[in-house]
């Protein structure tokens, strides 16, 4: 109990004297804020990208690709195949009894970013009418849907923000065709918002394609048994040679390469910065201890133990670190959260737009990092403070 009282007493004194050492204390705070700010911002980028792809698709929907293909870009399905897939018993039907399956083709079109001239691979998806019933999360936020059989497109909200000329009423030219933008849609922030959609038949003739690349369908029975049964029936059917994937599984796979890369970058940079910040924190805590040498020695002479002294210094370091971590996290949140970015997804070779996402998990991770830096930076000075012989310390008076 005496020990605890001592610890509390010293800690209170320590914290009270922080304003006198504001400069050095601020340095610890800023150093750690820098580390946490960078860590959280970079990871927020990877998190945003992963979230955009991971939130695409629903569990009861499947995407069918040519066997062996990992992405729509490398897949190809003939019309003969796609017309056979829709009537299969595993595919759900709408109120009128038409199958909820949409054969789609994905082409890349070149569009400049807003205010730039260099072309970017923007995905252009040709969809069959069932696509809207299948993806019922899609909402038109401006204008209307495209009409069948004409060169009209609707544009995802993200693509519309990121790339030039994608507003309702404008005309965009690809190849020998001119298309009118008639609507803007949102799908809850998923990857389709980076796309341009048009009627599949019109897309096929305009881009001189002869087949589709994928079929997206809603399953009549979305459970594991339903999915397995559907998959098995397809693999047993000699007419087909297909890969069947649940949508979330398909899109999560596409996020992997890029989000891994960003994570490696984020952790590497943060680790090095953390090492630098530890040196900084050590420096500051050493000088904090040095400036209070006499005070600490006096306490020891009065009968205080060494351990409470160690504790007090550690608590100071941890508190400063915590403040630094909070400041860094807050800066990352204010500066990055919600910022849009568009980049080339290596898996699909097409542009994906996404928002930075500073999640509570990331902020918590930032705080953990700051506490670790504070602990390492505080421990050695704390031990030094406790070990200093009282007579030596007081002689400096």
């Amino acid at each position, binding site marked *: 109990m005496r020990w605890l009282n001592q610890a509390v007493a010293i800690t209170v004194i320590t914290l009270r004297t922080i304003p006198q050492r504001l*400069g050095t204390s601020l340095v610890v705070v800023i150093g750690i804020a820098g580390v946490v700010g960078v860590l959280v911002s970079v990871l927020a980028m990877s998190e945003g990208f992963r979230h955009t792809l991971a939130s695409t698709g629903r569990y009861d929907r499947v995407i069918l690709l040519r066997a*062996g293909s990992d992405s729509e870009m490398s897949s190809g399905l003939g019309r003969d195949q796609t017309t056979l897939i829709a009537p299969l018993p595993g595919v759900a039907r709408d109120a009128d009894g038409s199958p909820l399956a949409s054969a789609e083709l994905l082409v*890349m079109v070149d569009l400049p970013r807003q205010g*730039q001239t260099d072309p970017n691979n923007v995905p252009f998806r040709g969809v069959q009418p069932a696509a809207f019933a299948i993806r019922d999360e899609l909402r038109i936020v401006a204008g209307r849907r495209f009409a069948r059989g004409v060169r009209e497109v609707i544009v995802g909200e993200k693509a519309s923000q990121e790339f030039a000329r994608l507003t309702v009423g404008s005309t965009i030219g690809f190849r020998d065709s001119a298309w009118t933008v008639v609507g803007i849609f949102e799908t809850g922030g998923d990857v389709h918002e980076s796309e341009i959609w048009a009627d599949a038949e019109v897309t096929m003739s305009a881009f001189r394609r002869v087949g589709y690349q994928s079929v997206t369908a809603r399953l009549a029975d979305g459970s594991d048994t339903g999915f397995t049964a559907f998959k098995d029936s397809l693999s047993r059917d000699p007419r087909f040679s297909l890969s069947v994937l649940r949508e979330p599984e398909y899109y999560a796979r596409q996020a992997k390469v890029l989000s891994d890369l960003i994570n490696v970058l984020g952790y590497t940079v943060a680790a090095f910065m953390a090492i630098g910040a530890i*040196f900084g924190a050590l*420096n500051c805590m050493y*000088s904090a201890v040095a400036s209070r040498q006499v005070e600490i020695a006096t306490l020891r002479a009065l009968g205080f133990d060494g351990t409470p002294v160690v504790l007090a210094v550690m608590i100071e370091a941890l508190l400063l670190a915590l403040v630094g971590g909070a400041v860094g996290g807050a800066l990352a949140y204010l500066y990055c959260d919600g910022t849009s970015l568009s*980049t080339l997804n290596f898996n699909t070779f097409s542009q994906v737009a996404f928002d930075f996402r500073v999640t509570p998990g990331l902020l918590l991770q930032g705080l953990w990092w700051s506490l670790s830096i504070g602990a390492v930076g505080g421990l050695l000075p704390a031990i030094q403070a406790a070990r200093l012989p009282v007579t030596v310390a007081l002689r400096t008076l």
Partner: protein
Amino acid sequence: MRYLPLLWAGLFRKKTRTILTLLSVGVAFLLFGLLHAVTVAFESGADSADAKRLLTTARYSIIELLPIAYLRRIEQVPGVIGVAYAEWFGAKYQNESNAFPVFAVDPRRYLDMYPEFTIPHEQREALVKTRTGAVAGTRLIQRYGWKLGQKVPISSEIHPKADGSMGWEFDLVGTLDADDPTVRGNTDIVLINAAYFDEARQANKGRTGWYIERIADPAQAKAISAAIDALFMNSPDETKTQPEKEFAIGFAKQIGDIGALVLRILVAVFFTILILTGNTMAQSIRERIPELAILKTIGFSDSRVTVLVLAEAVVLLLLGSGLGMLAATSLLPAMNSATGGRFPPLFVHGSTWLIALGMAVTLALAIGLPPALRAWRLKIVEALAGH
């Protein structure tokens, strides 16, 4: 020079503090060295581009194919002295998508087009003669432990064979390398025979991915590009021709502004270092005010004391940045081999050293000036009276 011992004594007056400061400066510059190497690697596509090479792709999307018959017509464009072509195979190796790029090429034309790639003459001829032959970059061969003469099974994600299967197999007959280390990353590819590939595949016969032209005079690049594109205007397969460098820059822009991202990180890093080191410097000078006053007493002029303080900051930063850059230089080769050649090789370039030097001096001035001014204004009597 004769002040160096004095400077040194001042710096290492408190060893722990100076060493810790040196280390944190070192870490900042280590990070700078690594990140700058990434930026350089990213921009090297444009730097290593040959001004005498043009690239012709399908006009509306680089993933569309062009007829192989364009070859003869492009060859006849005045100013064009060589033409090669290549097509993306879409390799999947050991279940890894896009494990490495595989290009279906006419071996002689392609290797002539890229003289920076080195390959023994007999291996080059072996690729020409072996229909199912393939040559691979030396780093790929190391990564996968391939042996010359073995069969390499590679699937394609795009091109089925005539029997509908996606599995292909090639005989490894040669190794591709480059003398220039900055180009070596470009040899992380596998080249296969377009003649065999085109015959054996199921669809898209008679087409290829893109053309590469060698021109005699880089100044004519725009005119020749326009002449090539004019040939195929209004055909079903219009083309877009541009210098290799423009293509590389455009491609890098697709990924987004990596430079800006790296810059933001570095600003955060160096701002943090500025605060940390600046505080240490200020503190160190504060403690030595009586000493500085004594220096002035024994005849050091105001400016000499000021320069002494400033020099301390410069030495500290130069030492720290040198340490950091050396660490980056020695760390990168290890990192290159640790990533197994999955990324382009990273190097610390001469330009990186120069920028580091400039930043070290700038930071030193920013950090050293406030305490130096303080030393300048120091009044002997007041400074000594305080103690």
